[in-house]
């Protein structure tokens, strides 16, 4: 895709946005992206819907962020410090803090260590949010959130915080529209997942089943799809030795096992911890021989019909409907199988499905907040993502903040509780009433740069206004200020889907 050309065309076509956008196109754009913007819609309309969809399904590295957003990412420590360095430096800092004799000094040092850990997670969140708001490859960013949630890790377990940026950038994001098997292998081997699901602590003598269970139950086949506890145990034995090593030195191994040792950054397959017996997994006999067993098991899992069905259902539930039509899920599963687990092929079926664009899916908090900020500021790049991180936490869908491996619920009713709606209206007020700290750079002594949410914008006048439900229109007419108008618009049922 010739993005450069597209952008040039876009610049010439901004005025087109004043013409009404057909509601079906607006709806499609809303379902594929993190929310409508004037500029994004103009781009889709300039390209034509089908070309635009194919581009979204097959993004290229040329789909760059606006310089003002990219500069913020470039300035982050996580952008230029490799994972191994981040983690080992922080470990050393923790060790030094723990060894301090003076209790008061120790407390200060431990606090500052925790703060440094938190900072790495905040950077990862800021980077994700900037990409979500401004990347032209919008579907890629939504898929990144979806797959992170599918292969969820919780930031506050152990030393996962400094691993988040790398987990997203190396294990998740490169594969979100690629082969599902690559995604499974990459997340499985990443230190963040090995730490989170305790496989780093599993060896032949003390098998930990956590990762094996979730790999089958959540990541691939899905719960209740026919595998047994025996399969979980066998997979756990297959996974023994897959772990983390923060030492520069290799582990002590008998000479015969040394050639099997695999190290890659913090990842380590330690044959000395592996159970070399043969295993029977999902009816297949797997010869005990080392790391190849893991690849064989993942192949088996990815080719299970239950996996195709499970992944298809999850995608359709997230992007379309709490209860997506069964024939559509079957078609998506068939595309998964036919394409050897090519996620873009599965999504291609979904985005072309009748009823996809017009589905009424209640926005979860992440989609709600991001769509509000995108609509309010379009390409006027925010300077601080902290308010957004705060809103998401307040709305109970903070980034990397779900403790359990199942990830946040993809079902609307998880977010429509009374207390949650009341909080959402408070957040609507904050977003609507002013720049809310989004244009105050996150450094000491900085001041607010100009910025005001413009929700009553060209898109509103050209298209949205005509689509409003009568009660919403009546309420908006009673707004006593632009701020209140914004709050009401963001609180309206019309903006919730």
């Amino acid at each position: 895709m010739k993005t450069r050309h597209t952008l040039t065309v876009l610049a010439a076509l901004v005025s087109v946005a004043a013409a009404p956008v057909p509601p079906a196109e607006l709806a499609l754009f809303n379902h594929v992206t993190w929310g409508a913007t004037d500029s994004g819609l103009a781009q889709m309309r300039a390209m034509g819907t089908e070309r635009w969809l194919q581009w979204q399904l097959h993004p290229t590295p040329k789909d760059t962020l606006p310089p003002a957003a990219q500069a913020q990412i470039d300035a982050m420590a996580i952008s230029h410090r490799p994972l191994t360095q981040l983690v080992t430096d922080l470990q050393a800092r923790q060790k030094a803090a723990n060894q301090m004799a003076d209790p008061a000094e120790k407390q200060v040092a431990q606090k500052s260590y925790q703060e440094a850990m938190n900072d790495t997670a905040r950077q990862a969140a800021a980077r994700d949010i900037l990409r979500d708001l401004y990347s032209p490859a919008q579907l890629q960013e939504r898929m990144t959130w979806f797959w992170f949630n599918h292969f969820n890790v919780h930031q506050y377990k152990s030393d996962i915080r400094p691993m988040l940026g790398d987990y997203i950038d190396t294990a998740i994001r490169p594969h979100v529209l690629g082969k599902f098997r690559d995604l499974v292998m990459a997340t499985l081997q990443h230190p963040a997942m090995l730490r989170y699901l305790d496989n780093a602590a599993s060896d032949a003598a003390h098998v930990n089943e956590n990762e094996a269970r979730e790999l089958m139950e959540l990541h691939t086949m899905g719960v209740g799809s026919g595998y047994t506890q025996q399969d979980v145990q066998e997979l756990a034995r297959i996974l023994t030795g897959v772990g983390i090593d923060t030492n520069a030195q290799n582990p002590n191994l008998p000479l015969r096992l040394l050639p099997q040792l695999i190290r890659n950054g913090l990842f380590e397959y330690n044959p000395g911890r592996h159970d070399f017996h043969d295993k029977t997994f999902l009816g297949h006999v797997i010869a005990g021989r080392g790391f190849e067993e893991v690849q064989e098991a993942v192949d088996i899992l990815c080719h299970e019909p239950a996996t195709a069905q499970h992944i298809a259902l999850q995608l359709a539930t997230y992007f379309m409907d709490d209860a997506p039509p069964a024939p559509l899920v079957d078609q998506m599963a068939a595309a998964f199988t036919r394409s050897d687990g090519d996620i873009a092929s599965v999504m291609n079926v979904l985005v072309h499905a009748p009823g996809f664009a017009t589905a009424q899916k209640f926005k979860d908090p992440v989609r709600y907040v991001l769509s509000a900020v995108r609509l309010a500021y379009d390409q006027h790049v925010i300077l601080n993502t902290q308010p957004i991180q705060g809103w998401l936490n307040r709305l109970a869908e903070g980034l990397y903040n779900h403790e359990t491996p199942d990830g946040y619920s993809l079902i609307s009713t998880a977010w429509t509780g009374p207390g949650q709606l009341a909080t959402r209206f408070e957040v609507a007020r904050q977003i609507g009433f002013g720049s809310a700290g989004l244009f105050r750079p996150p450094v000491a002594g900085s001041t607010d740069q100009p910025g005001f949410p413009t929700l009553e914008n060209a898109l509103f006048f050209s298209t949205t206004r005509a689509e409003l439900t009568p009660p919403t229109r009546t309420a908006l007419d009673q707004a006593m200020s632009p701020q209140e108008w914004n709050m009401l618009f963001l609180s309206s049922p019309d903006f919730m889907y």
Partner: protein
Amino acid sequence: MNRRTLLAGLTALAPMTVAGRVWAAPKADARLLVVFLRGAYDAVNIVAPVGADFYHQSRPILGLAKPGEAPNATLALEGDWGLHPALHDTLYLLWQRKELAFIPFAGTDDLTRSHFETQDTIEMGQPVQGSRSYNSGFMGRLAGVLTQSRPIAFTDQLPLIFHGKSGDAEARHAGIPNTGIASVGKPAVDDRQVQLILSMYKGNSLEQAVREGFQVRDDVYRSVAEEMTAANRGAASPRGFELSARRIGKLMREQYNLGFVDIGGWDTHVNQGSATGYLADRIGELGRGLAGFAEEIGPDTWRNTAVVVISEFGRTFRENGDRGTDHGHGSVYWAMGGAIRGGRMAGPQVKIEQATLFQNRDLPVLTDYRAMFGGLLQKLYGLSAAQLQTVFPQAAPQDLALV
């Protein structure tokens, strides 16, 4: 219509409708608050088997003294058991009033010793074997079988324990409210804006939830505003968990009858302290909180109240090399309230010595949490066997005579 008349109108509605359910007068019914100590509290240094020599051998540094044997010794309970001295002015008074029982050797059959895993296990309340649903927690199912429940989670996120998507519970509990309770700010959306927002949802499927949401928000804020007025009259203002627990007490007196709250900070691998120190401070705060809850809910309501304190597992019976303790198995649960037959240790016990430790490291589990809750709920609410099976599938209730 301003908000005052709106609220008056809402309170005048009887029976009250919340999330599509019809409530009888909620004042007369039982209250249940479940308190989850996340991180696995070191049970045997709070409810300590100080009469057992093996306890002192296992904990030469951390161990607490027998009642009367040191200035800061444990408080006599029953048999070998002594209570942590930090609870002297709070929970020990409840024990003496026979409103507090301890259930030693309590826990789960989850042997992962993983915090996350075992917390999930307890919250789901489903059999460990077999496939489990993260969409269904046992308090969610309980709320579904109780026709007069007004459930609420005093947490920022809706916890797994209140997920309620199983069978008919799903239909009735599309949304259990949750509200953070530690920091309650003045709502910024004002009365007129509330009315405008409500007008936009008229006839929408979310109308009832939106209406209830504003009401929960106002209930909570009104409680907090009253508490601020009280503080201005010179009362010492409570902090931390005590502040939260007192707020919960008020809200459960007036509005809600099925509550959940969690408290973290119990994962004491290092330097946990003994009669004083980190854990003593934490447990003292918890004690002040629960005593404050009892005070705020008021003597009339307290008579029908049960508070159950649980934790995912116990910690190693022996102290480790870092003056702390590691992940273990059996714990000690607490049950308190005017509805509780207290002043005693409830459930089966075993003499504590090396031979009786589970895997030679932890307290064994003799009372399963599902059996314990089952027995308690059966008496508290008069649940049928079928209803109990909905709440705790494939678990038999065990009557520890707590109610």
